[in-house]
C-alpha cells in the first residue's frame, strides 16, 4: 500500500511557486492569454518552469531547489524577466496579487486539460471563483516525520504569513474589508482547511489510504489544505500566502519560512498536541481580516498580541540562528513589512489616490516588473 513514500530531500532547501495574473493592457481586466504566452515561450530557453493553471487568465511559475536567498531571488528575477519580455511582445500585463480587484468570475475560461476539466466539472462555479493567486513555499525535509512536525508546528505561524503576504483587499470590484480576501475563496472547498493531527508518516500514510479507499480522494492534489505534504518531492508545502506583488517579496517570505523551520527543527520549542489548533481558525480569520493588527492567540503559551508584534518577537528568536547575509537581508525585509505595512495597505493607498481599480492593476503590473 506504500504509495506515498516520502522521498528524502535536502533538509531546509526551499522552492517557490507563484500563480500570476494575466491582464489586458486596456482596462487591465483578466484576459485569456495563458496558451498564447506558453506557445510563445515554447521555443525559447529560460530558467525555472512556466506552466498553465486552471484558467486561461492565470499562469504558474516555479523555481528549482535552493539552499540560500541569493540564488533563489536571482532565479525568480530571471523568470520574471522572461515573462515580462514575452508579455510585452504579446501586449499582456503580468501582475502579482492574491485576487484580481474587479474581474467577473463568470468570464473565466477553464484551461483545456483533463485535470482542469475534471475539477471544473466537479466543483462547478467554485472552480471559476477559485481564480485566485497564491504563493506556495516548499521546504525540503529529511523524512516524513520531520515533515509532519513542521506541518503542525507551522500552524501557529500561519497567521503571520497571511498578514505578511496579504494583497487581495479588493474582489469582484469592491473593497472586501479583508486584507486577504483570497483565502475566503478556498474555504468553500470540502477538502480545505488543515491536515489531520498526525505526527508519524506511517500514520499519515494509513489515513491517506483510508481516504482513498473510501473514494474521497484520488491523490494528494485533491486536498486543498493550508499546508500539504508533497511526498514525491520530499517537501512540506505552505499554500496560504497571496502571491506578492514583487518576486523579491516572494523570496523574502520563502526565506522567512526557511529560518523559521530551521529554528523549529533545531530547538523543537513545542511538544506538539492537537491543542495547537484550538485557536487556528480564529487566528487565521484575524490575519485575513485585519492583517498586522489582527490578534494572534497562542493557546500553548497563553498569550494574545497583535500579529505584527508577534512577527517582530519571532524575528528576535530567529536572529541568532541566521546563516548568511542573504538570510539576514530577507529577515530585515520581513521586519520592514511589519514596520511599513503590507501590500494590502499599499493597494488601498494606491486606490485612494484616484479611485480607479484599472489604474491600481496597472500599478501592480508595473510593480511586478520592478518599475514602481
Amino acid at each position, binding site marked *: 500500500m506504500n504509495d506515498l513514500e516520502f522521498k528524502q530531500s535536502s533538509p531546509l532547501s526551499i522552492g517557490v511557486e507563484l500563480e500570476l495574473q494575466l491582464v*489586458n*493592457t*486596456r*482596462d*487591465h*481586466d483578466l*484576459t*485569456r*492569454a495563458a*496558451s*498564447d504566452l506558453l*506557445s*510563445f515561450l515554447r521555443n525559447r530557453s529560460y530558467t525555472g518552469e512556466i506552466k498553465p493553471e486552471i484558467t486561461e487568465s492565470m499562469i504558474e511559475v516555479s523555481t528549482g531547489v535552493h539552499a540560500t536567498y541569493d540564488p533563489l531571488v536571482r532565479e525568480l528575477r530571471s523568470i520574471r524577466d522572461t515573462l515580462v519580455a*514575452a508579455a*510585452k*511582445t*504579446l*501586449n499582456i500585463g503580468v501582475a502579482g496579487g492574491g485576487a484580481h480587484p474587479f474581474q467577473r468570475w463568470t*468570464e473565466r*475560461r*477553464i484551461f*483545456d486539460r483533463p485535470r482542469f*476539466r475534471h475539477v*471544473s466539472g466537479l466543483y462547478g462555479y467554485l472552480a471559476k471563483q477559485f481564480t485566485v493567486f497564491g504563493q506556495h513555499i516548499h521546504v525540503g525535509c529529511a523524512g516524513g516525520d520531520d515533515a509532519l512536525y513542521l506541518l503542525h508546528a507551522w500552524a501557529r505561524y500561519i497567521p503571520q504569513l497571511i498578514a505578511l503576504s496579504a494583497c487581495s483587499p479588493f474582489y469582484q470590484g469592491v473593497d472586501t474589508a479583508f486584507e486577504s480576501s483570497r483565502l475566503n475563496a478556498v474555504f468553500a472547498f470540502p477538502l480545505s482547511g488543515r491536515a489531520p493531527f498526525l505526527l508519524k508518516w506511517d500514520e499519515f500514510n494509513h489515513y491517506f489510504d483510508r481516504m482513498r479507499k473510501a473514494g474521497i480522494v484520488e491523490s494528494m492534489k485533491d486536498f486543498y489544505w493550508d499546508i500539504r505534504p508533497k511526498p514525491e518531492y520530499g517537501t512540506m508545502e505552505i499554500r496560504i500566502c497571496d502571491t506578492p506583488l514583487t518576486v523579491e517579496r516572494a523570496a523574502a517570505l520563502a526565506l522567512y519560512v526557511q529560518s523559521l523551520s530551521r529554528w523549529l527543527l533545531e530547538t523543537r520549542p513545542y511538544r506538539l498536541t492537537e491543542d495547537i489548533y484550538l485557536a487556528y481558525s480564529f487566528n487565521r480569520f484575524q490575519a485575513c481580516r485585519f492583517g498586522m493588527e489582527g490578534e494572534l492567540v497562542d493557546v500553548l503559551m497563553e498569550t494574545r498580541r497583535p500579529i505584527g508584534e508577534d512577527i517582530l518577537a519571532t524575528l528576535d528568536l530567529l536572529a541568532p540562528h541566521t546563516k548568511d547575509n542573504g538570510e539576514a537581508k530577507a529577515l530585515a525585509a520581513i521586519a520592514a513589512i511589519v514596520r511599513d505595512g503590507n501590500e494590502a495597505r499599499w493597494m488601498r493607498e494606491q486606490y485612494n489616490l*484616484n*479611485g*480607479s481599480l*484599472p*489604474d491600481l492593476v*496597472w500599478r501592480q503590473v508595473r510593480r511586478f516588473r520592478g518599475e514602481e
Partner: protein
Amino acid sequence: MHDLFFLPSWPPVVGDLLWYGALLLAGEITGIAVHRWLRLPRLIGWIIVGLIVGPYVTGALDQERLASLSVVLNVAIGIVLFELGQRVDLSWLRRNPWLLGTSILESGLSFAAMFFVLRLLDTPPLVAAIAAALGVTTAPAVVLALVRDMRSQGQVTERMLLFTALSSIYTFITVSVLLASLAHEYRGDWISILGHPSYLILGSLLFAAVFASMTLRLLHLLGHRQESQFICVIGLVAVAVWGATALQLSVALALMGYGTMMRTFDAQRHFVSLNFGRVGRIFLILLFVLTAASLDLRLLGAGALGGLALVLARFVGKSLGVFALARQSGLTNQKAWYLSIGLLPKAGVTIVLVHEVNAMYPQFGPALATVMVSAIVILELIGPPLAAYALRKSGEAFEEGQT
C-alpha cells in the same frame, strides 16, 4: 368634418419609425435563429434581413426610404470607429515593432496584388491604385461585432483589431492623396494635391484631440456614473460625426483618432471600461441591415470573375504579409493562418465610397465599379462566417454555454 374623425385613415401611413422597429426586430430574431441553428455569427442574420428587404430583392425598402433611414448610419459608423480606436493600443507597436512591419506588409502586399489584377483588366494606373487602396481595409464593424459577439480574446483577436484600424488609416490616407492626384490630372493645381490631404489628415487629428480632451473633462465632472458617462459619449460621438462632416474632414480618421486619444489622454484609466454594450448593438444591427439592403446582388453576376480574382489577390497579399513576420512578432503559424482569414471581411460601406468616386470621376468607369462592387459583395457575404470560423478554431472565442 366627418363624424368619425378620430379613426385613423386606412391604410395607415408607413413611417421611418415603423421601419426602424421592424428592422431591429427582424434583425435580432434572424440573428438568433442563424446563431442557434447554423452556429453562424448573429451578424449574418442581420445581413440576410437587409438583403431580403432591400430594393434589389423584394423591394420592400425602396431607394428613397433607404436614403431617409440611413441618417442613423452615420452615428452607427461613428460609434464603431470610436470604439475601434479605443480598443487599439498603439504603444504595442513600439514594444513589438514587427507588428508595424506586418501591418504594412499585409496592407501593402494586398494593395500590390489587387493593383496587379486590376492592371490585367486594363484599368488605368491611377484608377487601379484608388480601387486597390479602397480594397485594402478590413471592415471595422464586422471585426468589432464578431469580437464582441463571440467574446473573443487572444493574439488573433488583438491583432485583427490592430491591423483593421491601421489598414483603415492607410487606405484613408492613400485614397485622399490619390484622389487629389486624380484631381490634379484635371486641374494641374499643386495646392490642392498637397493641401487637401494635409488638411484632411492634420485637421482630423486636431479635431480628434480637441474632442478627446473635452470629453475627458466632461466625464470627470460627471464622476463615477457609468450610465451617464456612456450616454454623454454617444452624444459626443454623434456631434463629432456631424462636426467632421461639416468641416469636410475625414470621419474615419477623426473618430478613430478620437477613440485612441481618449484612451491615451486618460492617464489614470478612469474610463477605459467604457463599452457600448446594448445600445451599441442596436446601432450595429441597423448598420448591417441597412448596408446590406443597398447591396445590388445583380452586380455579383456581372463582375463575378473579376471580383473573385480581386478577392483572391487580396487574400494572398494579406496572408503573405501576416506570415512573413509571424515568428518574429511572436505568432504561431497556426494562429497566423487564422489571422489571415480573420482579416478577410470587407465593409459594405466601401461600396458607398466606390459610388461616390465613380460619380466624381467618370474615368473610374462602370466596368471597374462593377468588378469592385462584386468583390466587396463577395467579401461581405463570406467574410464574416470565415472570420468567425477563424476566431472559433483559434480557441479565442468564448461563446455562451462554454466552460
